[in-house]
């Protein structure tokens, strides 16, 4: 009786759709989903299934997010189950698990028949979701590109990086996974060398416990190596900064000529101011003393004499420059070692093996 009434209503809606296709196309996916859910709650499962399938078709065509499609799928699966189409419900739930391995039906909304069927399908369906940073930069070697795997159920996975032609590039992990797993990649290839190509494919193969291949998720990764610029060498001390390290002849000449001039002035003082009859002995003693001082000054400031204070000051400058060179050398060596790789992840794709 109920089924007959639903059929009548379905026909009425189909007629309305045929009469007013433009009106239906204007109808939003939200309203289809809401109507489908309302029909499900009114136990009009045929109508709910029809509406939800149509809603899902629109969402899939529009590339809607997985969360939106998952909500429709769980109601669709439940509707199919209550329509007595268990195989169809299983297929819908399998599609749901493949779409989002983390999805769990709300046990307050769906009865145990639905959740039990879903859990059974989930346990049978071996798939993983791969989550990677969309665009990141890591340091080759010590850096880590973290690959998160979220599994639908306990299974074995093989995580490998492959060249674009499918040849192996680097094996990252092979083993069991329960709920989730983080697989790091240091950016290097199998020989611990920087990647020689700018595109690899991250491949995660799910296997049942029997070893049977259950599915493959592939994520293309674009790679770009970048090496930081090295620092320029610090310039050596300019000539203008360096003090003369050898005495020039100026100071020596000044001493000698100054001594001679002053000695001459002492000797000639009586001739300049008068009193030429003064005894010359004391005067000559003073002139001689000053002359000797000039000679001593000449010896002390002789040309080419090393200027110790200047040599020491220049050495301090040169040592400081050498320290800057050593620091720059170490920094450049560190920068040469520190190669960065920029990783851009593409859209993941799911490959399902053909059934028997």
């Amino acid at each position, binding site marked *: 009786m109920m089924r007959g009434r639903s059929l009548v209503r379905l026909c009425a809606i189909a007629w309305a759709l045929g009469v007013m296709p433009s009106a239906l196309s204007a109808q939003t996916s939200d309203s289809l989903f809401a109507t489908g859910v309302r029909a499900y709650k009114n136990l009009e499962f045929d109508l709910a299934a029809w509406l939800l399938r149509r809603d899902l078709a629109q969402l899939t065509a529009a590339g809607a997010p997985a969360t939106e499609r998952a909500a429709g799928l769980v109601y669709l699966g439940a509707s199919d189950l209550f329509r007595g189409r268990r195989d169809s419900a299983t297929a819908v739930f399998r599609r749901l698990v493949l779409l989002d391995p983390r999805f769990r039906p709300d046990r307050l909304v769906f009865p145990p028949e639905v959740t039990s069927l879903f859990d059974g399908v989930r346990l049978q369906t071996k798939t993983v979701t791969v989550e990677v940073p969309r665009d990141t930069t890591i340091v080759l070697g010590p850096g880590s590109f973290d690959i998160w795997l979220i599994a639908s159920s306990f299974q074995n996975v093989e995580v490998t990086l492959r060249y674009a032609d499918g040849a192996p590039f680097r094996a990252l992990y092979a083993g069991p996974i329960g709920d989730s797993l983080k697989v790091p990649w240091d950016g290097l290839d199998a020989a611990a060398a920087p990647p020689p190509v700018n595109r690899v494919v991250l491949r995660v193969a799910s296997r049942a416990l029997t070893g049977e291949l259950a599915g493959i998720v592939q994520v293309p990764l674009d790679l770009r190596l970048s090496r930081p610029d090295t620092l320029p060498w610090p310039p050596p001390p300019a000539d203008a900064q360096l003090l003369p390290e050898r005495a020039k002849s100026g*100071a020596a000449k*000044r*001493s000698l*000529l*100054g*001594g001679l*001039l*002053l000695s001459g*002035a*002492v000797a000639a*003082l*009586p001739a*300049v*101011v*008068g*009193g030429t*009859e*003064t*005894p010359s002995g*004391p*005067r000559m*003693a*003073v*002139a001689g*003393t*000053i002359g000797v*001082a*000039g000679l*001593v*000054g000449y010896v*002390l*400031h002789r040309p080419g004499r090393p200027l110790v204070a200047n040599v020491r000051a220049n050495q301090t400058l040169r040592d400081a420059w050498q320290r800057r060179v050593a620091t720059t050398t170490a920094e450049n060596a560190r920068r040469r070692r520190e190669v960065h790789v920029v990783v851009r992840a593409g859209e993941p794709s799911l490959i399902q093996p053909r059934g028997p």
Partner: protein
Amino acid sequence: MRISLAVLAAALTAGGLQAQALRPNGSASFVWARVQSQVPAGTQDFAGNVFLGQGAVGLGRLQLSLSYLQGTLNRDGALGASRDLVEGTVMLGFRALDWLTLETGPHARAYALSGSTQRWLFWELRARAATAFVGSAAQGYAELWRAVAADANVPEPFDHAQGGEVGMILRLARAPLAARVAYRLDHAVLGGGTRLETVDGVVVGVGLAWH
């Protein structure tokens, strides 16, 4: 004239006095001095060691210097009375260039003879050039002066007088101490050359200079 010179010097240096620190210095020296007096009656020579104290204080380009010399000179070559020599100067100076200082002021000299004192007073203009010639340790200097006016209680009228000093000052690198050796000579002519008064001496001393 003297007041005008002082006012001119003060005007030239007034701007530089602000933010200038006083630069005092002083020295004590022994002078082996000789005095020769030539008069128509004959020549008298006196010699002896006398004490010379000098001090100066500088402010900007201005400088005030004082000197005092005192000692007993003995008759040279013959027995006779000695004479006491006392001399003093007060000079106001202006450092026209880094190496050139111009000074003016009175220079008084007295000979204490037995029973009388011969007094001389010169108003002098001095020019002093000084510069280092052995690194910065040894500074040589030469000073010339000429009397623009004089007064002496001797019978002969004053004709002219001039003098000079040439020497060397050695400074220690890390101390305000300095040593000096110099030769100085004054020569005065009176009565158209009938009386000649010559005073010369070798100066050896030590000094302190605060910078």
